[in-house]
């Protein structure tokens, strides 16, 4: 363990996150991975959209671009193409990445732009007050699904594999050491890497669905069966689903890896 505090903008504290939110654990794991790789912090550029997870980049001592809702991969594309020596990392949430920003995300993956996207999935819109997201499990209560969500949800990793991401992984906020290892692996991967981090939102998801606070929500994540986890307290909703519905479990670890040409725009010498 390193002293990751040296990577923080302590002058920017206190932070905006709620008690019990796992996003801070995710940030810690990320900083550990940067430290393990001994990246030049002048060459680390973090790009984010709008939402709770996107606010993380304000607290780290790198070059940080807090963009617009969903557009972080597009900002990051311009940044990387104009300055290829930068290590570009996008931090985004599930609503940011998969709803308003879905188009930018899949095209950055398709092009195989050399960047890493950390998508923190808490299955709800936290910053705006707990509205349903494309990741909200069926049956779950959100402020816009008071009788339970009736929309199917996205499997982000399947989507990204389909779009052409060359490194796709899913990790759990409850496993910080594995997060660090996979984040370091993703950042050294040449091309577009995507990590879905299963995080939590005790303030809205936990409260609306009566599944407890941060500790309880994280403990659900730790329940595994042959590599399948049932995160986001979605166990609660299994019994409400028709018998034929697949269990809303998700496989974790590195789910896909390939080496294919990295796109860097049309530039001299081509």
């Amino acid at each position, binding site marked *: 363990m390193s002293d990751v505090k040296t990577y923080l903008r302590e002058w920017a504290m206190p932070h905006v996150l709620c008690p019990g939110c796992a996003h801070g654990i995710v940030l810690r794991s990320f900083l550990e991975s940067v430290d393990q790789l001994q990246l030049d912090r002048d060459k680390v550029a973090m790009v984010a959209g709008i939402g709770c997870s996107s606010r993380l980049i304000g607290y780290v001592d790198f070059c940080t671009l807090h963009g*617009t809702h969903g557009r972080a991969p597009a900002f990051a594309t311009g940044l990387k193409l104009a300055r290829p020596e930068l290590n570009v990392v996008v931090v985004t949430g599930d609503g940011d990445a998969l709803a308003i920003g879905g188009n930018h995300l899949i095209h950055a993956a398709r092009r195989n732009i050399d960047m890493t996207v950390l998508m923190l999935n808490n299955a709800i819109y936290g910053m705006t007050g707990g509205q349903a997201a494309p990741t909200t499990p069926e049956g779950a209560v959100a402020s816009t699904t008071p009788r339970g969500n009736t929309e199917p949800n996205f499997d982000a990793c399947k989507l990204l594999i389909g779009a052409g991401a060359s490194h796709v992984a899913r990790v759990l906020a409850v496993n910080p050491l594995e997060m660090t290892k996979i984040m370091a692996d993703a950042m050294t991967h040449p091309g577009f890497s995507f990590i879905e981090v299963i995080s939590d939102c005790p303030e809205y998801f936990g409260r609306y669905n009566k599944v407890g606070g941060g500790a309880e929500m994280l403990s659900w994540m730790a329940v595994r069966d042959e590599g399948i986890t049932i995160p986001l307290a979605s166990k609660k909703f299994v019994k409400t689903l028709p018998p034929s519905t697949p269990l809303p479990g998700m496989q974790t670890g590195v789910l896909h890896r390939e080496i294919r040409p990295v796109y860097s725009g049309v530039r001299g010498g*081509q």
Partner: protein
Amino acid sequence: MSAAQLLQGNEACVKGALAAGCSFYGGYPITPSSEIAEQMVRLLPKHGGVFIQMEDEIASLASVIGASLAGSKAMTATSGPGFSLMQEHIGYATMTEVPCVIVNVMRGGPSTGLPTSPSQGDVMQARWGTHGDHPAIVLAPASVGEVFDLTVKAFNLAERFRTPVILLYDEVIGHTRESVVLPESVDVIDRTQPTVEPADFWPKDAAPAGVPPMPAFGDGYRFHVTGLIHDHRGFPTTDGDIAEALITRLHDKIEENLDEVTDVETFMMDDAELAIFAYGIVGRSAHEAVLRAREAGIKAGLVRPLTIWPFPAAEVAAAARQVDTMIVAEMNLGQLIGEVERVAAGETKIVSYLRVDGEPITPTVLLDLCVSGGGGSS
């Protein structure tokens, strides 16, 4: 002097961008601007730059802003429907003070409207399209040669004031081929760099009407950029005094330096008793109409802003005080005429000639208006 070249307006735009030091283009296809992308992909790599075709216009301007933060001079080009999609990031670039150039080759609207027909329907969108109080610099060339000149100026103003600059011209100028002689070199302005060490650097340290220095990501200055209201550290705040100071500075840095921004051509105005106010392609027709009116013994003149935003209020007011009649001609249902009326009301009779059928305004109709003294209507 260089040799004469036969160039389309959209080609002149590319040449102007390269002369100004453009090294990044991110765009999305749309008529009638696509020739800019098609030329850029051929020429930019030869000049050491990078081209990318993005997935939409929202992403195009985002990529441009990202590249600009990485130290590039960057631009995109579009037309009305794409320009609507770019409004989100025009506001973002304004707030974050990221230099960039946006070209809008106007076609008829609203919506998909009249592709490949000219229009001046985006004049107010260029000024007010993005939300919130914000400044805007919008340049309106009237010829292929002027497209080159004002593209260079657009980059220079973007760098000088750290703000997005919009180059607004219509389909006729974009597609017309003219013989032009381009200058062998142009004056180029680059964004100022910090003089303090990274440890002492805050990204939004600026005097009340000042422009903060702007290092690039990767230069050793680590800083935060956000579209939220932010303090001198670049960090979000909800402090009302800081919000007011920031929004005011974004305006004042331009408003207090209008001599560097404003450009109005006056033609035969010395003894004019009637003026035509026109910009862009209509300015060309108005120029011809003034010449013909003079042949007919009418003391006509032309007031043609090359900078339409900020609106050249002082220059137009002065012209209005001089003439009996001011004919305002636009290829829309009346957009910039509202500004003319604001600054010239009571000083002169204001007559409008407006057209939205996708055809340019001809010298003949403007000459007829000169002959009839504006037709008596106002």
